[in-house]
């Protein structure tokens, strides 16, 4: 069941088209990543999904209801966190969570705030003013704010940016668990491709305002055929280079290592040709294409 349906969404700023007729769905319990280079239209899309930017054309439906005419009811069940927005700097963390909690119809308000404080490890920060927090602490408060109303749909704009690796990992696991326990649906933007591969079920790739790909991270990565094969060659490096040149294969050297770009199906044949020439390698690693390779290829094309 789709909790969010986006139909022909378009946003023009004067003659510039920031988002160009995009349509997609977010299923219940799905974590969907919006990926794309800077200026691709991700933030503009998210703003339209939150109702804080009026689309030039198109419609947004949550739970089969139109956002424009059911804004109040829908936004009770939706929330948002971004590293690029702020909460009032003079207010303490506790005061911010308190006033935000009253914007939503929450039962057991105090209990919910206490739970959120515990989850996002904010107890020691409750009396600190926002202006005195580090960027990582601010990100945690923003995430806490986004969870305060038991959201059914969460829009997270770079949720783990500025977090140290341990906290980022903790937050990722928390979000995955929340999804499993409460079937929350999440739209997630990030520039951390490894994170997207780990967390997201599906990736929508936006470029120049258009959706250019919509698939699982694995399938998108698989559209890149080239693997990086790294060999440590104690003896026979010159012969290996000759083989590469003869087969017109792209390679680069790193000390006694050679890294060769090959299609997956070409690897056995290449290794056989090394054996035929008497080249011995004592280590081999094959890096399969990743989402990052896909991202880089698309960025390069554009």
């Amino acid at each position: 069941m789709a909790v969010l349906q986006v139909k022909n969404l378009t946003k023009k700023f004067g003659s510039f088209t920031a988002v160009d007729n995009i349509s997609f769905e977010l299923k219940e319990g799905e974590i969907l990543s919006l990926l794309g280079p800077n200026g691709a239209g991700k933030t503009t899309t998210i703003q339209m999904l939150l109702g804080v930017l009026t689309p030039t054309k198109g419609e947004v439906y949550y739970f089969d209801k139109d956002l424009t005419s059911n804004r109040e009811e829908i936004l009770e069940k939706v929330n948002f966190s971004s590293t690029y927005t702020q909460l009032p700097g003079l207010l303490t963390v506790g005061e911010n969570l308190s006033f935000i909690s009253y914007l939503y119809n929450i039962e057991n308000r105090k209990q919910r705030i206490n739970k959120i404080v515990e989850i996002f490890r904010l107890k020691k920060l409750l009396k600190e003013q926002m202006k005195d927090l580090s960027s990582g602490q601010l990100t945690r408060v923003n995430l806490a704010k986004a969870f305060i109303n038991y959201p059914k749909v969460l829009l997270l704009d770079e949720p783990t940016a500025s977090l140290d690796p341990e906290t980022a990992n903790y937050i990722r696991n928390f979000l995955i668990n929340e999804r499993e326990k409460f079937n929350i649906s999440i739209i997630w933007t990030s520039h951390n491709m490894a994170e997207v591969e780990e967390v997201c079920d599906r990736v929508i790739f936006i470029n120049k305002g258009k959706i250019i790909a919509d698939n699982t991270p694995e399938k998108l990565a698989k559209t890149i055929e080239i693997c990086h094969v790294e060999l440590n060659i104690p003896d026979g490096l010159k012969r290996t280079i000759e083989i590469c040149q003869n087969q017109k294969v792209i390679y680069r050297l790193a000390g006694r290592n050679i890294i060769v770009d090959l299609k997956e199906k070409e690897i056995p044949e290449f290794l056989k040709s090394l054996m035929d020439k008497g080249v011995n390698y004592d280590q081999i690693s094959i890096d399969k294409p990743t989402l990052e390779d896909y991202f880089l290829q698309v960025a390069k094309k554009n």
Partner: protein
Amino acid sequence: MKTYRIYALILRFIYLFKHSYDRITDAFYWPVIDLIIWGLTSSFFMAFSPNASQIILIVLSGQMFWLIVWRAQYEITVNLLEELWNKNLINIFVSPIKFSEWITSYIIVGIIKVAFSFPFAMLVAYLLYKIKIVFFGWYLIPIIILLFMTGWWVGFFVAGIILRFGTKIQTLAWTFVWAIGPFAAIYYPVSILPGWAQKIALFIPASYVFEGAREIIYNGYTDPSKFYISFIINLVYLILSIIFLYSSFKKVLEKGLIKVY
């Protein structure tokens, strides 16, 4: 309208008030300084014209009543600026809050602040000059309501301009209301204004209130029609200013709340 959402924003500004020395200064320090300076100036003038026994009451009541206009508009415009400075508008409007709840919270915050700073100014005026504003009796009710209305429409109009053009014109939040001050005839009768200015004063609802207040000081009563006229003009301006603010808000949504600062 949901009261808990209005309460959320009131709470946000009460918390801010607690932490902001600027806000505390605005609420208490400036009104006292104004009362001291204007009170002493009036006493000095009285020394030259002992017949003008009401001069202190006229000047200080004018000053305190103007505090209501100023405070009501200030709470709208400066609270909006606070949201823009903090880039907090998006956090508010990704919640279910409605436009009507948003502006209602600004109005209530203004009333709360006046409820503190006006009695405080009354107390200071009494302690320093033995001036009792309660002298106005029941007339205080329409006077206060009408001056609040003036503050609100000025505030909403300026807030609409700030929303459209951002903080680069934030000075209007402090200065705009003073542009109507000379025509509101706070301390002097409208009749001493030049002819063209008297015509403008006809369209300034606060001028009827201050004229009425002076009549009460001199005669103990005033013609209620002054207050009716003021109410009607205030109401028209208030409706127009809310429409203008709403249209500015819609305009802002076309470029995105995240881009307003």
